[in-house]
């Protein structure tokens, strides 16, 4: 008995690529989230949020949904409550970004229309990038999904049937990347750490870190 995910032409596998029943395959489906220092000694942090990955390369990528607000949450002091939020929401072919300390934390949000970060035309296959006077870079559009994982073998591995993948995952010469050639809808923002603030939270190795997470939120 294989894992009950049907492989059809219209399958959208986000994971956080392989997501929960309610969000899987919807325009609010978060496929992936990256946060990184873009270059050695950079004073910026870059975030990439991928929505709605298509597994099969021949599928056209989707579009951004005007009813979906994407939020990147940043916790500075380690209490796991957001101290700074970056919002992205599309309107009329442009992606609008807002950023600042939220009035309220939690599951419900409003757009911080008084705190615009900038906006950028939503790209086609060629990237359109906007850089603001404050040194913030903005992008929204289709991209190649960088995620790599032998998802099909993973399903066989977790299948409790003793005849299913008794050897576990495959060696490199036999393994395949389920996501090779897949596309996704990306939102990318890079901003100076001075805008985010100075974190006092630490990771398990004692280094100061921002604790971050991304949510999608649907208009009520």
């Amino acid at each position, binding site marked *: 008995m294989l894992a009950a995910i049907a492989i059809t032409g219209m399958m959208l596998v986000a994971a*956080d*690529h392989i997501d*929960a*029943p*309610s*969000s899987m395959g*919807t325009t*609010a*489906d978060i496929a*992936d*989230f*990256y*946060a*990184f*220092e873009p*270059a050695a000694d950079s004073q910026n942090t*870059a975030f*990439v949020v991928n929505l709605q990955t298509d597994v099969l390369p021949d599928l056209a990528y989707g579009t951004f949904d005007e009813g*979906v607000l994407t939020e990147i949450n940043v916790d500075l002091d380690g209490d*796991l*409550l957001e101290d700074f939020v970056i919002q992205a929401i599309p309107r*009329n072919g442009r992606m609008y970004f807002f950023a600042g300390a939220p009035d309220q934390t*939690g*599951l*419900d*949000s409003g*757009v911080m*229309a008084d705190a615009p970060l900038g906006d950028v035309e939503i790209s086609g296959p*060629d990237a359109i*990038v906007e850089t603001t006077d404050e040194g913030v870079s903005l*992008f929204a559009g289709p*991209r*190649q999904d*960088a995620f*790599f*994982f*032998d998802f099909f*073998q*993973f399903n066989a*591995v977790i299948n409790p049937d003793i005849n299913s993948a*008794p050897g*576990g*995952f*495959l060696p490199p010469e036999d*393994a395949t*990347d389920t996501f090779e050639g897949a*596309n996704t809808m990306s939102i*990318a923002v*890079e901003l100076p750490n001075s805008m985010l603030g100075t974190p006092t939270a630490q*990771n*398990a190795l004692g*280094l100061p*870190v*921002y604790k*971050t997470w*991304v949510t*999608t*939120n*649907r208009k*009520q």
Partner: protein
Amino acid sequence: MHSLKYFCLPLFALALLSACSNDDNSVEMTAASCSDGLMNGNETGVDCGGPSCMPCGDGMEPMQPDFTGTYSQVDHMGRPGINTVLSFDMDGQPSVKDAHNVTIPSEMALNFQAGFEARVEQYHDVYANKLGLDPMDVNYEANILGLDVTTLTTVLAADVLEVAPDAPTVYFDPGTDNDGDGRILVPDGDEIGLTGRRLQDDIVDVSLILLFGGAEGDRFNGQDLDMDGVADLPRLTSDGVGLTAGNITDNFPYIGAPE
């Protein structure tokens, strides 16, 4: 397209008609452009109004988009693969995965740590059975970071992605075999990790090592214990796949063009 003679009447206060010219020669009528910073064509304000452009607001500027309303959370992600791998939906029960996606991080450990720990042990039971062993004998073993299963799942249950502002980003890099003991994954002082996630980081292998790798990171590595040419242990610490997207760049937005 016909050229039109264009007469520039001196009574127009705003000299914004781009085809205005004292020259009597024919000039082409430019089509209205809704984003050229000029009031032209059939526009009734700058870049707004008329049949082609967005409506004007009060001050003859384009109306701002409507950002009003309440937006309610439907999905969440911190570290990769957490909800997928460690939340277990049972038939006939409310979806744990759905619940995780609408829980705020500060409340996640309370609600999901126990389930995550049970799921880790369940994975070990699955492979005990596949190996013909008693599941009671095959359990999670403290990983290369020295975390027991309760501590590990408590850390993972609070699902956030840490990113360091003042350190190079890597999900986990064991560094070198600094102490020369032949075991690169066992910490010896020059490992770095938990400082963020780059597009090229092999988060699947890191996660598998931390979940199934035991103290030295290679507990289930497809080993041939009796040297008979056949693997005796399953391969659980790597999925065998590396980065395939070859178009990641050093320039924003870093992630490459679609296929």
